[in-house]
């Protein structure tokens, strides 16, 4: 990996600007190609970032806090990568009560043994307090079967909808019946998954499987959204549906097909064993 890529880009550009002297230097005088204009630009709303422009065309950007460089090809940003490669971390050899241990970041003497301790945001809670705080019958809310509501837009667009989920009577009840997320269009979990993001905002209602049950590209108010949620909830697949329990009303009772089940085989094997032993008995 090339360290400090912007410096090398500038250096490479400088070297290239000196040109090939073999054919363009008559009489020993070399024509110097014009150097590209290299500039770093900043944005007032992103103080920790700098953007590289070469001849007025953006080539990439750097985030100092995260040590992340991204190329920009005019359409899309590349995946981030560090400019300064960190050496492989090999841990620290420590001695614990159970013998030598290579430590990669735990303070073992500050990890007391607990026979089941929960903490919510730093506050130790008893199991019953955890249940009360989460208002569900388990210490961890199983939201895996809830409808997914995803609001994609600017902060103001998202907040308008979120406020209605908190305050409006039509939507408030859905907070416990749906998993509501508000994300920016460039969030990797949105951008890379194929969501439409150009609404004002875009609001998706999905089944847990991901099937899109409803999408709107603007916010029409709490009651239309609540209505859409109601319809989507009715139409989505019942997670407890078992096709094997479907009745077949055309199936004849005189059907001669035999379904061999496992217990049939055990019974047959047992009878066979009994027969074999009985033949042996005097």
């Amino acid at each position, binding site marked *: 990996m090339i360290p400090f890529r912007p410096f090398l880009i500038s250096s490479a550009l400088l070297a290239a600007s000196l040109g090939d002297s073999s054919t363009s230097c008559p009489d020993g005088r070399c024509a110097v190609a014009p150097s590209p204009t290299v500039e770093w630009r900043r944005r007032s709303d992103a103080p920790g970032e700098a953007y590289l422009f070469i001849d007025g065309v953006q080539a990439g950007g750097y985030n100092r806090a*995260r*040590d992340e460089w991204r190329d920009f090809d005019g359409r899309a940003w590349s*995946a*981030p*990568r560090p400019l300064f490669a*960190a050496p*492989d*971390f090999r*841990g*620290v050899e*420590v001695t*614990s*009560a*159970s013998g*030598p*241990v*290579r*430590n*990669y*970041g*735990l*303070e073992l003497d500050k*990890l007391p*043994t607990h026979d*089941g*301790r*929960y*903490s919510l*945001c*730093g506050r130790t809670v008893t199991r019953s307090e955890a249940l009360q705080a989460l208002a569900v019958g*388990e210490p*961890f*809310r*199983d*939201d*895996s079967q809830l409808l*997914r509501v995803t609001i994609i837009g600017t902060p103001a667009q998202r907040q308008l909808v979120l406020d209605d989920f908190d305050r409006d009577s039509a939507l408030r009840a859905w907070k416990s019946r749906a*998993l*509501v*997320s508000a*994300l920016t269009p460039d*969030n*990797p*979990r*949105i951008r890379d*998954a*194929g*969501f439409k993001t150009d609404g004002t905002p875009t609001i*998706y209602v*999905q089944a847990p*499987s*991901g*099937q*899109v049950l409803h999408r709107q590209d603007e916010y029409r108010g709490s009651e239309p959204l609540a209505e859409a949620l109601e319809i989507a909830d009715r139409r989505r697949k019942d997670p407890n549906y078992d096709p094997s329990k479907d009745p077949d009303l055309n199936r004849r009772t005189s059907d001669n097909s035999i379904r061999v089940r496992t217990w049939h*085989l055990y019974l047959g*094997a047992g009878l*066979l*064993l009994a027969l*074999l032993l009985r033949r*042996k008995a005097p």
Partner: protein
Amino acid sequence: MSARISLFVALLSFVTADFGASSAGRGSFVNGPAHNGEEITCDLPASEHLRNIGSHVDQKGMCVLSSVEMAARWQGMTEWHGLRDWAAREPGGAWPEKVDRQVVAFAKQHSLTPPIYLQYQGRDPRPLLDAIDRTARMACVTYGYSPRYGGSIAHMVCCVKFRRQWAVVLDNNFPGEDLYEWVPLDEFLRRVKHPTGTAWVFVWLTPPPPPAPHNK
């Protein structure tokens, strides 16, 4: 008689054999995000994996916040990118109360509302790990052994799958698309509690990423 008994036993064995059972249930191995028709639950792109580092202050490891930040990235918490590197400006090594302090401090410094998260310490992390996987979130768990290291370790990793036969580890010492460690569930639980006898689990309670949209 003995021949007949042998025949019976052979027949019984045939009847009871589960031809779908995996024969690789004992040991762990390194693989990509899928194995024998099973896929990991939390498929964080490799470009967002973090490699563990030592603190800039005392070189002690940053495995805990490396894991915690990867879990935040998985759950779409983009405002929390940089948490690990920010914390590396302090002495390294972590425990639950230090994580509490650093989450609050990072949130305050970056004008964020601290998200809800849960920590568990105890001898029976299985129900919580079941629930975390079922809800498509990413668990951060202590990890005390792996053949990769050849001995006991004090480490925290991400658990990107915990269901059916396998737990799968995203180890911040071995980030990468093809470097997941597949571990039989019971063996994983043993490693999570080794060497102290108890596990420490961290999970963000923010919503998991929405599933990729598709039509009926």
